[in-house]
């Protein structure tokens, strides 16, 4: 959904996005910190050179060129944090919802009597707190 154009993107936003992506892309390529900083400065300079262009046609053309260059120079293995989307460990663990435990078979539940006794207690406490906060739930008949 992130790629769907929802709403207008101003020119400034577009340039900003391009700049951010360009720097991120540099980070993929130049993997030593100091080298990356150096190239990031160069990239900043490239953007700064054209910051005073008032002719929107030229500016738009430049942004488009920049986006094209960015696309052509994207890394085949961009840096991703492991747990962020696209990373190697993203979504590795699916945590089953808590209510799964409620649907255990009674015989299974009987194997952990203490836990389930406390669980029932906690449920009651939660309901009490909820009712205190929001009032009694209205039972709708539809």
């Amino acid at each position, binding site marked *: 959904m992130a790629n769907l154009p929802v709403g207008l993107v101003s020119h400034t936003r577009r340039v900003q996005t391009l700049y951010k992506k360009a720097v991120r892309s540099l980070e993929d390529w130049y993997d030593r910190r100091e080298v990356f900083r150096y190239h990031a400065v160069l990239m900043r300079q490239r953007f700064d050179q054209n910051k005073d262009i008032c002719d929107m046609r030229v500016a738009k053309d430049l942004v488009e060129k920049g986006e094209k260059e960015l696309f052509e120079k994207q890394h085949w293995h961009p840096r991703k944090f492991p747990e962020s989307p696209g990373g190697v460990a993203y*979504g590795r663990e*699916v*945590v*089953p*919802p808590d*209510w*799964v435990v*409620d*649907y*255990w*078979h009674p015989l*299974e539940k009987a194997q952990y009597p203490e836990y389930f006794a406390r669980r029932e207690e906690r449920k009651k406490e939660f309901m009490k707190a909820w009712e205190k906060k929001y009032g009694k739930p209205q039972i709708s008949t539809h």
Partner: protein
Amino acid sequence: MMKFLITLLFLIPLCFCYNYWLMVNCFFILSFMFMMNYSFNNLYLNVSYLFGNDLLGYIFILLSFWICALMLLASEKIYKIDNYYYLFNLMVLLLMMSLFLVFSSMNLFIFYVFFEVSLIPTLILIMGWGYQPERIEAGIYLLFYTLLVSLPMMISIFYMYNCMGTMMLMFMNYQFNLLMYFCMNLVFFVKMPMFFIHLWLPKAHVEAPISGSMILAGVMLKLGGYGLFRLMSLFILVGLKINFIIVTISLVGGFFVSLICVYQSDMKSLVAYSSVAHMGMVLAGIMTLNIWGFWGSLVMMLAHGLCSSGLFCLVNIVYERIHSRSLYLNKGLLNMMPSLSFWWFMLCSSNMAAPPSLNLMGEIILLNSLVSYSSLSMILLMFLSFFSAVYSLYLFSYSQHGLYYSGMYSVYQGVFREYLLLLLHWLPLNFMIIKSELWVLWI
């Protein structure tokens, strides 16, 4: 023979005794009793009043007993919500009786009669206990596809009697012509179902309740194979000329149907189409007219009966919880029901003919027969067995792996009955291979 028949007959009052589990027990006891009847040769045994069975019939009767018992075990829901379960019991019992008579009759006409009779309880199961209104259409499809081609069969049975002077299956010795070939066999092709005339099957499966699906996949499809086994010896001369057409249709059709499987989003219809693909291989194996083909088809039918019935059970277990058969909603079940996921994997892998399932044995024997029939069939067989893996894994991984559907608010973890049900499908499927000679001795 009579003892089982009479036992079944006297079970009828039990249906109305409001004791569901007793009925299940009786079926299991019957199937275990029937196991004692096993004979280590291929002669007709237990002959009385035109009924009797050789090993072929024995295997199918045992399969029907087993599947009927499992059907009742699977349909606990009907009992729980009190959905006319005594009538349901009666229907299963009638179905069992007719199947028993089909497989044990030594007379072609009686075979035919009960072949038709077995349709009616199935139809009632689908119409009566199905879920959606579309079940009416499915029932009509089921009935008319079979009836339309079974009436020519009746006439040709009379003609056969005219030619041979007997209806006893073991005395039949004659060679019929092309017209008779189609009049007799088309009904079995529909029942199998052959590609082109398989349309009733996915419809019936999708609309049927779990018991209907199980008996359809488990035994009813095998009726076609059984009939062909019995009657192919009458059509050897004409079969040598035109069987290649049927082989081609079923192999190409099996490939097409495998592709259709990959396109499905409904789990039940995926399993139904996969049985069309498998039965296509079975039909091709019978049509090769060589002994490997017959043996392989028998093993494959036996394996498929257990395996796809088990898969239907799994789909139903999930359906009873999530109330949907859609693959888009049944996701990430591994996180909800890990133990059930194990059975999903076992049965899906059996479905793709992984060792040591009986499916593999059947597939190997069928491959041997078909490749020795024509080496060109290798190309299609490659695709068939590759795509059987594709759709089985697709079914498994799409339903089990990943994030669960976020609109899911309750999943009951599963009860022993369900695990028992799956175990009883899987155990024979994977253990019969150890001495699989016993299942192929019949010729």
